[in-house]
């Protein structure tokens, strides 16, 4: 373990003010908001779901906006690295010539304070595909510009399963450091040079932990770990092998039939990274090429120009989602494409439950080997 420092709530406010004054973009979980109209309470879907849906990751201008406690933002952190829509270049027709304008590939420094460990871990997993046969310049530049402090999680609800997929409520995977909430502030550890440089630069804001704080932090983390392990668990290796060897299996039909192909699960997923590239005209003779999030759950995703669609129905498309996450990606990159955040479960309004599905697959796998 690295040296543990303490950042009081007051000093956090001062730290955020310092960062904002220095033109560093500060991103963290904050209450979802927008222009209000008197008498029109913005009834977010899932009001009854407690904290889920009422928070979002966004840029904040002061620490007052940050919600560094329980609650899972509706969308993950991926939007800050792979924006929902991103301009790749613009074009302008000039006579018979076409002028192409590049987009900036340098980004202002950013700090994420309080990313969920599962959301932060996802970035390192997606790094692999973004640097496989092609180095994604925009993804990498945004990653390089961002220092990330995760926040030890107290475990959201019964749909969390990070420990089954190699993450933990206090994981520092892909993080430069970790905050753990204790009385009056946060314990802060750093895990990378980037994290250490950040703390060194703002050293005046940090102090030695008060008496008992380290013990309280350790207890909080141990309790969270025990809590998430109580939910359910499965073995990713067994799941991988079963999925890889059961491309044709009646099990898939029992899942896909319920699915509407809405793709909301892929949108809220911290690791789903598929995109579509479109050319959009923005006037006569000018426009932009953009990449936008896409989803394997849409029939258009695999529709061929010939009219043929290799994934012709939702059963094939749902199988693809499980397959990509738990067989294809680990085979190719050595890690499952899932961090156990449970968002797809909370989001699916037809009650599809990836946890239940993976537990079932694990049971089938164990029966197969008996």
């Amino acid at each position, binding site marked *: 373990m690295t040296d543990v420092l303490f950042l009081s709530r007051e000093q956090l406010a001062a730290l955020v003010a310092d960062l904002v004054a220095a033109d560093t973009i500060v991103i963290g979980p904050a209450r979802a908001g*927008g222009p209000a*109209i*008197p008498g029109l309470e913005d009834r977010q879907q899932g009001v009854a779901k407690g904290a889920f849906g009422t928070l979002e990751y966004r840029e904040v201008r002061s620490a007052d906006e940050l919600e560094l406690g329980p609650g899972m933002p509706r*969308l993950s952190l991926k939007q800050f690295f792979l924006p*929902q829509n991103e301009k790749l270049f613009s074009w302008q027709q000039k006579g018979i010539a076409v002028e192409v304008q590049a987009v900036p590939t340098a980004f202002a420094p950013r700090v994420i304070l309080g990313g969920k460990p599962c959301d932060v871990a996802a970035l390192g997993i997606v790094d692999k595909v973004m640097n496989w046969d092609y180095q994604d310049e925009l993804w990498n530049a945004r990653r390089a510009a961002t220092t990330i402090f995760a926040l030890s999680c107290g475990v959201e609800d019964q749909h969390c399963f990070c420990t089954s997929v190699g993450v933990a409520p206090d994981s520092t995977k892909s993080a430069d450091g970790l905050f753990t909430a204790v009385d009056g502030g946060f314990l802060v550890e750093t895990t990378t040079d980037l994290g250490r440089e950040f703390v060194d630069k703002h050293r005046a804001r940090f102090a030695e932990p008060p008496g008992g704080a380290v013990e309280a932090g350790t207890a909080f983390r141990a309790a969270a770990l025990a809590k998430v392990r109580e939910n359910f668990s499965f073995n990713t290796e067994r799941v991988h092998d079963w999925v890889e060897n059961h491309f044709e299996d009646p099990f898939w039909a029992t899942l896909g039939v319920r699915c509407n192909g809405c*793709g909301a699960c892929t949108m809220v997923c911290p690791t789903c990274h598929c995109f579509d590239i479109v050319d959009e005209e923005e006037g006569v003779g000018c426009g932009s090429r953009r990449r936008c999030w896409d989803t394997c759950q849409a029939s258009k995703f695999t529709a061929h120009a010939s009219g043929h669609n290799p994934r012709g129905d939702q059963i094939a498309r749902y199988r693809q989602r499980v397959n990509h996450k738990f067989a294809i990606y680990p085979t190719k990159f050595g890690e499952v494409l899932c961090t156990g955040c449970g968002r797809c479960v909370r989001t699916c309004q037809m009650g599809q439950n990836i946890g239940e599905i993976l537990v079932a697959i694990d049971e089938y796998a164990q029966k197969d080997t008996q």
Partner: protein
Amino acid sequence: MKELRDLARQLLTDGTVEVVVGWQSSARGARPIFVDKPEEADLLIFDTRCVHNLATYLNPRRKQVTDLGKLALVVKGCDAKAVAGLLREAQLTRDRVVLIGVRCGGVVEEFDAPVPPEISAETIMPRCYGCDNREPHLVDHLLGDALPEPPAPLLSIEKRIEALEAATPEQRWEYWTAQFAKCVRCYACRQVCPLCVCERCVADKSQPQWIETASHTRGNLSWNVTRALHLAGRCVGCGECERFCPAGIPLTLLNRKLQQVVEERYEYRVSDDPEVAAPIGEFRLDDQQEFIK
């Protein structure tokens, strides 16, 4: 519940249908289930958590469901309106489905509960307040006892529309652009809609591109406004689009407002009678057309 299970078992045993689509209780509360074996009929439930509009499974776009053969579908009154919509627009033939109607006293907002919550002002799904079809007509079987009328929610959809209308156009513009800014263009609203029946949606066309794919203000406005207008006079108000929206956009406000406009302009209220033509599907000489100068 017993009569529902008995009926489902009988329909499956005597081969009337291949599958009964209804609800089951799961670790995620109530959710849709496809029962194809008589011995599994006992998994079926109907309670206040059964919010889902199962009529969406009759949409011809659901190939995985149309492949199953003849279905029996459990419908609440609101769901029956959507079935009527599909029949009205020739997207479904009546002989493809056996409709099992259930009398409804309203559902709750949150289906993900281990036991069915009591209906109250706090728990009620706002769209259930003032429902005019708690006993579906378009059914082959009607089950359950008549239930009391659901209470008013803490804040009704109408009250929210009034609040919106009391605001200035600038405030409304600011409100909706901020709401649509949240849109990630997953098209979940379209996918789940029982009446979004187009084989190829206008949003999926790229040559020409009518609606931009990118989630900037322009693209998001054109998508959300187009969706709402394509459903005007067709939307049954089941609220599934809003429930499915991963971004939490209050789509019900748009849909309900358009329902009000259609009612006012065309004296049309969506029902579960497929014989009554929707304004968009019929021309009448007495249609108001004072906008033609």
